């Protein structure tokens, strides 16, 4: 699936919640609960995303030109939010991640239900994921040279 196909799928799922704030929050937390646990060795200070009010650990690996992220958070809602990003970016190429336009955030009204502070944190997670993509892209290019 492409990044946009996954985004469209998420938009459809959130539409079913019909704007109910409580259902939305519960749904996001449920998504977080399903996120595979991060390896203990990756739960380091280095992997903490800067700019999040909650603590978020994020790391990435590359297999066959596709990126694979794993993450965890000390708050359930943030874990759910990062799981959405992981779902979108899993097995996508660094280039696709770098150029991704994450329109799903507006479509599902994310800022409305997570508030400004968490929105800033969410932006920090996206930035960190794009930084990973850039790092892997650079690594690939060096290898090709």
């Amino acid at each position: 699936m492409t990044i946009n196909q996954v985004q469209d799928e998420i938009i459809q799922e959130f539409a079913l919640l019909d704007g109910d704030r409580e259902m939305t929050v519960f749904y996001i937390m449920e998504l977080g609960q399903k996120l595979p646990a991060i390896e203990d060795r990756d739960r380091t200070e280095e992997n903490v995303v800067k700019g999040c009010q909650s603590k978020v650990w994020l790391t990435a690996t590359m297999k066959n030109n596709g990126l694979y992220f794993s993450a965890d958070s000390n708050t359930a809602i943030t874990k759910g939010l990062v799981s959405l990003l992981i779902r979108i970016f899993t097995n996508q190429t660094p280039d696709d991640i770098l150029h991704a336009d994450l329109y799903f955030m507006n479509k599902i009204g994310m800022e409305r239900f997570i508030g400004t502070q968490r929105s800033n944190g969410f932006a920090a997670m996206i930035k960190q994921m794009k930084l990973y993509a850039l790092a892997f892209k650079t690594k690939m290019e060096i290898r090709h040279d």
Partner: protein
Amino acid sequence: MPNSTSILSPIDVERIRKEFPILHQQVNGRDLVYFDNAATSQKPAYVIQALTDYYQGYNANIHRGIHTLAERATKAYEATRLTAQQFINAASEQEIIFTRGVTESINLVASSYGRAFLREGDEIILSGLEHHSNIVPWQMVAAEKKAILKIIPVTDEGELDLDGYKKLLTSKTKIIAVNHASNSLGTINPVKEIIQLAHQLGAVVLIDGAQAGAHLPIDVQKMDCDFYCLSSHKMYGPTGTGILYGKKELLEKMPPYQGGGEMIKEVTFEKTTYNDLPYKFEAGTPNIADVIAFKFAMDFITELGKENIAAHEHDLLLYATQQILKLPAVKLVGTATQKVSVLSFRVEGIHHFDIGQMLDARGIAVRTGHHCTQPLMDRYGIEGTVRASFSVYNTKAEIDQLIEGLERIINFMK
């Protein structure tokens, strides 16, 4: 305006709620439950009206104008000073200085009194219950004057350890700054005893009254504090204004905090003589509208009767405490015997941010985090709490909604 009520007459919450327009709205599809009163209280309609009346009817700069509007504005502004004097029972109106609020009041004292009278090696005593506003200004002046900060320890229940305090007092002690009531835990501190002990050594005491203004009777003369600070916005009044009370003899010997208009008597390029109290400390055009409206907020409290308000809030606190302790995994943070209406708690296994967000989804406003008291959170080895704080317009039915919301969250997270 509510009618005058006698001592300990029950609060008619439904009637009071009608005075607060903001309470009558839905948030996220449900009736708003506002339990963030320790952060800021809501405003009755006639406080809001006072702001509009000023801007629409008599907006003018105060004190120096000779025209009619300036006269009206000056009278209204000074009427608040008189009300404030009576509200805290200060000996004179000259002891009431308008500031932006408690934070500025503390900064004023730390900067003016602290810089003028602290010497190297002098000691400032704070408590482990303090808001950052009552820590950082002292750290700044202590660093500049090479003074030493000492901290009154806090017990597991969230009370100040008075024996610990006594051990900190020395001949070097110059300033003690503590809150009247803790914003994070609600603990009401034994300020009178703290002040008496400090005065035996000739130290001055500043009381941060941010959490007391709307909840506890305040009599600065009986308390014998040297400085007392209040914020209007936590007392049903507008944001951006507050009071510094200081004993006249102290204020008189303190240098001005800021320079500018209003605080001067005469200015030449060679020399400036300062105005008399309280104007010496009110440089520039003050926050006229908000100061004027602040009077109406204090009147609201006085007319309801602080004892009546305190009794109602205490009732809510007791009920909330009983109900919340029935929930599994809930731990109270701060179980002092004397508390204002602050309920700080944690739920095992659920982060306070998640709880705050989920309660918000049900229209319930609480505060989550460290509440600007990081050293206190460190004392308990926690990152933060969920804090529900109650006001005169809150009801037991609203507490039931909080409990119901928490129950759903706890069940969901199981």
